[in-house]
């Protein structure tokens, strides 16, 4: 079973910016994912597109070159995710980015979220068991 490691806004900035105080912490998770991939363990890192918008992560901008190269997949806000996120946002009043995260959590089997807002992640998970790593 494949595990997906999701980044929130803070995790994106921490990973992208070597001067960020949590940079090495998020790099550590990227290294562990890399090591597992090398052993053919099914694991990936991904970012919800709504989080990418919130973080200002423009893949065409040179400032994001490092993080662009780390094979972090976009998870688009497609129709089914939009429906789930909209319903979640109505119930919980969370941000659009967090609602998209929650929609992905609902649709995934094994999820780890790197976040500065563990309470918010548990809120959008709505009881689904996930691993939340507090930055």
């Amino acid at each position, binding site marked *: 079973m494949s595990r997906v490691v999701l980044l929130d806004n803070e995790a994106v900035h921490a990973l992208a910016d070597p001067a960020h105080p949590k940079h*090495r912490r998020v790099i550590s998770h990227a290294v*562990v994912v890399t090591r597992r991939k*090398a052993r053919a363990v099914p694991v990936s890192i991904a970012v919800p597109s709504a989080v990418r918008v919130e973080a200002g992560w423009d893949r065409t901008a040179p400032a994001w070159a490092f993080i662009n190269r780390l094979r972090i997949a976009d998870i688009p806000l497609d129709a089914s995710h939009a429906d789930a996120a909209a319903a979640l946002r109505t119930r919980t009043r969370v941000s659009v980015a967090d609602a998209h995260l929650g929609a992905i959590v609902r649709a995934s089997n094994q999820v780890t979220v790197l976040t500065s807002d563990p309470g918010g992640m548990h809120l959008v998970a709505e009881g689904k068991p996930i691993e939340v790593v507090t930055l």
Partner: protein
Amino acid sequence: MTDYQVIDRINELLDSTDDQTVNTSMRIPAALRDAAALAVNELDLAPSTTVLTANALRAALEAAVMQAVLDRHYEEHPDARPTLADLAIAAAELDGHPLAGQPGLLRQSAAEVQQRHPEAGPEDVLLWAEARTSAAA
């Protein structure tokens, strides 16, 4: 081509949605081919040996390109390189390991393991820490 141009090109190719296939002249050991065929046919490891081979190659390339990016990042930013303890903590956190909430124990275990085994990995540290915990219980 510079290293980054190579990395970017590999990433482009890995991200390609073009599902065109090619016959290759790649030669692999016959025994490896036979083992793969058995694993596919008898153990349902993958839908076909082609899928098995392609998936393994993709995983290896993804790991290699990520490691290449990280290595170049460390050259430019040496402080970004995680310690063995950092990696052990991250490995525990990713899976919700019971010791994820004990970073002090993991840091101590990393120091102990590294003294005896300089090439140890984060999973070795977790195993050591688990052993210490159960021995102390």
